[in-house]
């Protein structure tokens, strides 16, 4: 066996004609040529490894960058924003000296290939982003989308994903407080596994990913580096699936939540003692990303000795070490005199820590292996100056036809019995059914601060035990709406998450998003993407909630078939006293039910059109952001002043879905009267936005009505909390037991 000589910088300069496997690493020819141009010579194998992963779609945002800029350009003025887009996660001021960091990311492709590990490491990655900001993680949320609930492959993917999220998050001691589970055949070969996390810190504890101070040491700590996940970002996350290629399973990383728990505790202890100058987690693109980003963001250069990286497998090549996505690793920059203490803390927590390099006064990132220099690059060209594509985009030819296929013209129920049957069918349909079988596999209680968790409208965590200060988070997205109109669909996702936060009594402050789309090389998909971002950026500006960061997942496509455009939006809110939070469940018989907002005939993309007619067409509900803002203000005031005892936002499934959920959670029925001017069908099933149902104690009726009247919010009395049936007067009455059986039986029957 012959051994090839080490491909050093010197060697590369001397052997310009050596062919490198840039195509196998997922690079395009012009991208490779650009690297040669930057370096003035061919890259070494190690340099090529770094550029290929860092310039991948997943890491470089090369197709999305030109559109994402709008989040910055249109960002509303907000005093709350402490750290914006570009860092590991955004940071928001929530008052009393506290700062909250939160972010949503995708782990879609790995979770399809290997559901358990793919989903587990998705949780691990987002949690490390939170720690890297200096915060203690306090909760996670998981917006999930799968293929049809009754498809055999869904039974392979979903239980693995759910077990992976639980297996990892539960073991970290993070309550899982929210998220979504949606089924649609468009996600059959491309499930969306998005993961969100929230962390809390004091303002002065915010940390950033930068390497500054010549002579400061670069410490790699956490798990040893192995051969798992090599090329995960470039290969898995940045290409469409193609059955002809060999199995991609080796590109999925394997998680060790126990190691991550130790990493959390040891990092927080090091922060507490102010030992850390800069910090970066190792996620996609591993050491390539951590070293180039730290160096690029800092003031100097960096020298790294790759031989010092602790390995799980001693046969790994330097290229593999640079590309490995082994989990549970972090990189810290520490002043020389504090290194001993830092290592001591790591030892206390049985975490392996090694000095692998130092900050230099130059502007180069230099990496050595067996005494030879194998990387010598300007780190900015790796981390921040990757290719930018102005991908062509065009409104798809089928869009007009889709919008013309009006759902409002679908046959409607003609008798009370039909109406009743459709209600039962709706609340039992996989998307509208109870997800308890899934969420009961997640720990909601650990850390002892969970005020609200799913199926509440938003999750809520107490962050100060003395004052009762808390934060709420909701994630929402509706691919069906976005398919009909990506601009409006993205705004509706934001509006729903914003409304959900306000419904629990919290004031919406900031946004993170996870933008899941098909292939950017398809102009129709690119149009959807561009429209969705434009819609979201415009809406964030109008609602005054800046985007603090997020993630783009492209190539969610099998062959020609792309997923529905699925922007998932997370809204973070703050509540001064969690004792004032508003739950979904009906609390007391006799309380009055009010519908807030206007109801129109809006069935395009609705749950009703899907469940009853298997139809997708027409236009999504109209967006009125000023109405959303007013509704939110009313919900927050009503909660603070004790005027309402329960509230539920209206979204997919319409009013009847919301009322059934509140009734089942509270174990109390409702008598509903169809208001004047509406027919029973529209009243029950329309999905008009900007609405909520609230339960008002009789003693508060006058005050509540006066407030709504004074501020100009339409309010309609629609019934009363009462008994053990949901009774729509003049139409039908459904016993809670029957509704419960329908609502709670579906998911276990399909998946257990």
């Amino acid at each position, binding site marked *: 066996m012959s051994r090839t000589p080490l491909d050093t910088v010197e060697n590369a300069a001397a052997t310009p004609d050596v062919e490198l496997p840039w195509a196998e690493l997922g690079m395009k020819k012009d991208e490779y040529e650009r690297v040669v141009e930057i370096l003035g010579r061919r890259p070494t194998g190690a340099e090529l490894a770094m550029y290929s992963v860092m310039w991948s779609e997943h890491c470089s945002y090369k197709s999305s960058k030109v559109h994402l800029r709008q989040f910055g350009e249109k960002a509303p003025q907000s005093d709350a924003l402490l750290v914006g887009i570009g860092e590991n996660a955004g940071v928001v001021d929530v008052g009393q000296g506290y700062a909250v960091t939160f972010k949503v990311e995708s782990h879609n492709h790995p979770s399809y290939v290997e559901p358990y590990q793919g989903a587990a490491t998705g949780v691990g990655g987002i949690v490390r982003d939170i720690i890297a900001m200096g915060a203690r993680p306090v909760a996670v949320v998981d917006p999930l989308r799968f293929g049809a609930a009754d498809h055999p492959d869904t039974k392979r993917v979903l239980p693995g994903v759910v077990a992976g999220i639980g297996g990892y998050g539960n073991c970290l001691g993070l309550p899982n407080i929210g998220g979504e589970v949606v089924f649609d055949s468009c996600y059959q070969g491309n499930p969306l596994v998005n993961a969100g996390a929230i962390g809390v810190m004091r303002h002065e504890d915010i940390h950033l990913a930068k390497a500054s101070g010549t002579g400061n040491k670069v410490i790699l700590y956490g798990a040893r580096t192995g051969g798992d996940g090599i090329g995960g970002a470039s290969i898995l996350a940045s290409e469409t699936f193609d059955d002809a290629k060999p199995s991609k399973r080796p590109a999925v990383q394997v998680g060790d939540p126990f190691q991550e728990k130790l990493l959390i505790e040891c990092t927080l202890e090091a922060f507490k003692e102010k030992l850390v100058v800069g910090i970066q987690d190792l996620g996609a693109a591993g050491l390539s990303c951590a070293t180039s980003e730290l160096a690029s963001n800092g003031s100097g250069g960096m020298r790294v000795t790759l031989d010092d990286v602790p390995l799980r497998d001693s046969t790994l090549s330097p290229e593999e070490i640079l590309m490995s996505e082994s989990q549970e690793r972090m990189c810290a920059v520490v002043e020389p005199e504090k290194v001993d203490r830092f290592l001591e803390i790591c030892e206390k927590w049985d975490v392996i820590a090694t000095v692998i390099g130092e900050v230099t006064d130059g502007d180069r990132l230099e990496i050595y292996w067996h005494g030879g220099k194998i990387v010598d690059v300007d780190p900015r060209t790796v981390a921040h100056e990757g290719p930018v594509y102005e991908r062509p985009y065009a409104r798809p030819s089928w869009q007009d036809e889709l919008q013309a296929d009006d759902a409002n013209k679908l046959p409607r129920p003609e008798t009370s019995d039909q109406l009743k049957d459709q209600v039962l069918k709706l609340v039992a349909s996989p998307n509208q059914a109870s997800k308890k079988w899934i969420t009961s596999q997640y720990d909601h*209680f650990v850390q002892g601060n969970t005020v609200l968790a799913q199926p509440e409208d938003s999750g809520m965590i107490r962050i100060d035990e003395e004052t009762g200060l808390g934060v709420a988070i909701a994630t929402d997205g509706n691919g069906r709406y976005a398919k009909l109109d990506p601009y409006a669909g993205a705004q509706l996702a934001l509006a729903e998450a914003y409304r959900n936060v306000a419904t629990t009594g919290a004031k919406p402050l900031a946004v993170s998003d996870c933008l899941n789309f098909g292939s950017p090389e398809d102009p129709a998909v690119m149009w959807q993407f561009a429209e969705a971002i434009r819609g979201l950026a415009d809406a964030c500006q109008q609602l005054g909630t800046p985007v603090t960061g997020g993630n783009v997942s492209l190539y969610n496509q099998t062959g020609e078939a792309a997923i529905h455009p699925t922007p998932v939006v997370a809204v973070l809110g703050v509540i001064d006293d969690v004792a004032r939070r508003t739950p979904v469940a009906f609390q007391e018989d006799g309380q009055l039910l009010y519908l807030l907002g206007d109801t129109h005939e809006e069935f395009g993309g609705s749950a009703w059109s899907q469940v009853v007619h298997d139809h997708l067409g027409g236009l999504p509900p109209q967006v009125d952001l000023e109405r959303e803002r007013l509704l939110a203000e009313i919900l927050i005031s009503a909660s603070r002043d004790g005027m309402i005892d329960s509230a539920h936002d209206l979204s997919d499934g319409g009013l009847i879905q919301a009322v059934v959920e509140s009734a089942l959670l509270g174990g109390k029925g409702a008598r509903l009267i169809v208001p004047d001017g509406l027919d029973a069908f529209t009243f029950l099933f329309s999905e008009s936005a900007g609405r909520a149902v609230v339960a008002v104690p009789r003693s508060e009726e006058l005050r509540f009505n006066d407030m709504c009247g004074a501020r100009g919010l339409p309010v309609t009395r629609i019934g009363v909390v009462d008994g053990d049936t949901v009774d729509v007067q003049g139409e039908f009455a459904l016993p809670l037991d029957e509704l419960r059986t329908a609502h709670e039986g579906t998911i276990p029957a399909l998946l257990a």
Partner: protein
Amino acid sequence: MTARIGVVTFPGSLDDRDTQRAIKLAGAEPVALWHKDKDLKQVDAVVLPGGFSYGDYLRAGAISRFSPVMETVIEQAKSGMPVLGICNGFQILTEAHLLPGAMLGNNHLHFICRDQKLRVENADTAWTTDYEAGQEIHIPLKNMDGRYVADEHTLDMLEAEGRVAFRYVDFNPNGSLRDIAGITNEAGNVVGLMPHPEHAVEPLVGTGRTDGLPFFTSILKKLVNA
């Protein structure tokens, strides 16, 4: 004068700070103990909290039971110091043979998190005197390996000696034999259970119930009156 109650943190402990909070709410003084440290800092009682110590690798509790701190805990428990094991703590107590039996994976093979109804079968242990025998309470349950098993002889002995401290009511969440949720040693100073009383101490968080608080007030009274 109050009681000092230690809470051990093992690598991978998760509910350690929550247990300290519950102890404080009950009016006692929580004391953090570290797994590598044999010194119990002169506490009057010890709680082994929930979590996934050592990632539940090998078997839940199997590695932690060899921690330096456990040497002292085992020794003092045998001479009467009250010890409560919650969830992973219960698993450690069985691995350490301070309590009989063992925990297997839930019979449905899933992690389960729910508000669980229990019956207090023994209100005479160091940790249960503020309950009444037969009282039904709701305590959150959250675990992967909660199925209590022991041989028939041991189960009969536990029943005969009144050492089944808690039993699942209405719904057995994991396949535990004879619906056993928690047990005590013969002397009544060592108690282990799978549900988490420290998560039922405040009306505002968790399930909104306070049915778990009597664990901590029971021990406080016992220690202060001793």
